[in-house]
């Protein structure tokens, strides 16, 4: 009995390992190099244009939404705010578009990119909840890390990095500052960008128990707290901070119900209606990477998962002008993908493209895998018959193959049933010898 239990443990272990390694092996053998489509809104032809890699080597296409193809240089002249350095090189500056004239300085002043990827969202990546609060007015050209780090909870605790000890004075001063501003303890979440390679420091945004948002900066060593007015009923899920001296916006606010707002850079302009809503139909923050491109004429939101890419072109007041969506070339299943999936009924994906955490996502391959399961069952029956098993005794193994297909077949081939008595083993040997005789 225990020997049977032992064998079945090994069979299950084998099936599990095969199901995890199956997709990893495909990635190793048939690597995918296509990448996502580059999609833009052309201010020249006022249509969406895109660049896409179609296959091996450098098979790029440069196309607009109506299916017109361009060579690379023409394509770049269709999005001159993106390739303004090339425009300068080719003598096409200043640009004349929509009855206006744009020189290099104007283009540079209005260019901004805001990005939000699923992996940045809380729960998508492990994060040690300790944050260095930089001095926002360092009195020198570059920002530098402080010798303390901030732990949030029932209070703001500062820990000195040299001594690895709590700094009671900083802890008291900064906790008191947030309390005075009306902060409802404990801290629910902290958002900010930990880097010294940025134009300035906007500090951190703290979400309190009441769902209110507060910005905390360290200015000349003392706390500066700025409440961020939120529209009624707005529950903050994430704040993406992108300190950039150009542009009017400091970042993005994502709500629990998946809506997205732009956060104004200028604190004085932040009021209850100060968050700018973005109308992005079909946007799913869990799976879609978002990019917002700013240029002197338009704002374009482009968002994509592993399959679809969508875009909304907006005017300077963020009113939608045009929308576009298409299935990317990378989403077209290759023959090898189809074959690989058809061979097995399911796989377990260890890697999630939208998270840093390893996960075991079960992917069912559906009716596509039925022929392979049928073939695996025939082979398994033959294999078990050669080992001298009767129909009834081979039933559990066949059930395993019916449920797991090729995985089960490999498992029972590697770990076949043990003969339960010497007579059975001898019968199996005789049957094997007879088959070999017939074959010769």
């Amino acid at each position: 009995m225990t020997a049977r239990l032992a064998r079945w443990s090994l069979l299950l272990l084998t099936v599990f390992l095969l199901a995890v390694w199956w997709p990893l092996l495909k990635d190793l053998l048939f690597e995918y190099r296509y990448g996502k489509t580059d999609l833009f809104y052309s201010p020249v032809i006022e249509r969406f244009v895109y660049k896409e890699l179609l296959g091996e080597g450098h098979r790029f296409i440069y196309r607009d939404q109506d299916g017109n193809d361009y060579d690379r240089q023409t394509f770049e002249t269709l999005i001159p705010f993106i390739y303004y350095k090339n425009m300068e090189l080719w003598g096409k500056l200043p640009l004349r578009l929509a009855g206006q004239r744009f020189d290099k300085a104007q283009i540079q002043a209005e260019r901004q990119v805001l990005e939000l990827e699923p992996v940045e969202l809380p729960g998508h990546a492990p994060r040690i909840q300790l944050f260095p609060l930089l001095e926002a007015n360092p009195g020198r050209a570059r920002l530098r890390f402080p010798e303390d780090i901030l732990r949030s909870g029932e209070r703001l605790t500062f820990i000195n990095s040299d001594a690895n000890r709590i700094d009671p004075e900083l802890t008291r001063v900064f906790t008191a500052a947030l309390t005075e501003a009306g902060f409802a303890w404990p801290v629910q979440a902290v958002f900010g960008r930990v880097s010294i390679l940025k134009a300035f420091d906007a500090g951190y945004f703290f979400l309190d128990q009441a769902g209110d948002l507060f910005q905390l900066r360290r200015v000349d060593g003392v706390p500066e707290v700025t409440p961020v007015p939120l529209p009624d009923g707005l529950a903050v899920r994430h704040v993406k901070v992108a300190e950039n001296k150009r542009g009017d916006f400091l970042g993005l606010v994502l709500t629990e119900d998946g809506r997205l707002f732009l956060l104004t850079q200028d604190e004085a302009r932040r009021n209850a209606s100060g968050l700018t809503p973005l109308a992005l139909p079909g946007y799913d923050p869990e799976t879609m990477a978002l990019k917002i491109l700013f240029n002197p004429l338009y704002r374009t939101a482009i968002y994509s998962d592993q399959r679809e890419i969508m875009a909304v072109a907006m005017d300077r007041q963020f009113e939608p002008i045009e929308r576009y969506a298409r299935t990317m070339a990378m989403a077209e299943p290759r023959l090898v993908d189809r074959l690989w999936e058809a061979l097995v009924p399911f796989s377990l994906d260890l890697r999630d493209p939208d998270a840093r955490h390893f996960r075991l996502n079960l992917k069912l391959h559906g009716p596509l895998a039925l022929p392979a399961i049928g073939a695996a069952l025939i082979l398994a029956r033959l294999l078990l018959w050669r080992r001298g098993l009767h129909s009834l005794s081979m039933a559990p193994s066949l059930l395993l193959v019916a449920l797991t297909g090729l995985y089960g077949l490999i498992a029972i081939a590697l770990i076949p049933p043990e003969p339960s008595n010497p007579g059975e083993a001898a019968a199996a040997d005789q049957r094997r010898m007879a088959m070999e005789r017939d074959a010769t």
Partner: protein
Amino acid sequence: MLSAILVKEWLKIRWAWLGLLALHLGMLGYLYLVVRHQFRVEHSEMIWYWAFELRRLLYEPIQYLPLISGVLIAATQFGPEMIGGRFRLSLHLPLRGDLLVWSWVAFGALMGAVLALLDAFALYWIIGRWFPREAAVSAVLTALPWLLGGWVGYFGATLALLEPAVARRLVYLGLSAAFLALLFQHRGYQEYDQVLPVLIAVALLFIPAVILPAHRCRHRG
């Protein structure tokens, strides 16, 4: 009978285990010196930035230590048994064969667990010496798949050593290697937090599995 078996197991592995204990203490001492050295030559706030933001793991030098220990304990425990048919002789003791094998592996796994606990506590203490407690907890959570690697290494080696047929030995080694490769895929800290309970549950399948090679050994003609 059981105490006699455990004494015998201890006598078999004592020198190897004490050697491994010395190796663990040596590696943990080395880790202590490496971290201390980092904090001597770099500014502390920069090392914290590397650790928290850039996700560098300062304690990677010990990642294969549990695996090495698991394999070595299994080798010293079952290697001599497989010489000259001693293992088959042991299976004729007045104790059920499966209970006998489980008592052996329980002892071996326990001795491996002692080393794993030492690693976990020492890692917490070393990291906590220079980092806040969140980082020390994170280090232990990050090291859990490596400790599980010790378990897989021990049982994989046990299966291969107890197995009488060479081809089947290769199968067990292949399965164990495939499992081990899943445990060292990290690019930063705590990436296995969500998946580790499943991996631990699957690794528990090794406990009943070790009976199969013993059964095959006993019933081999």
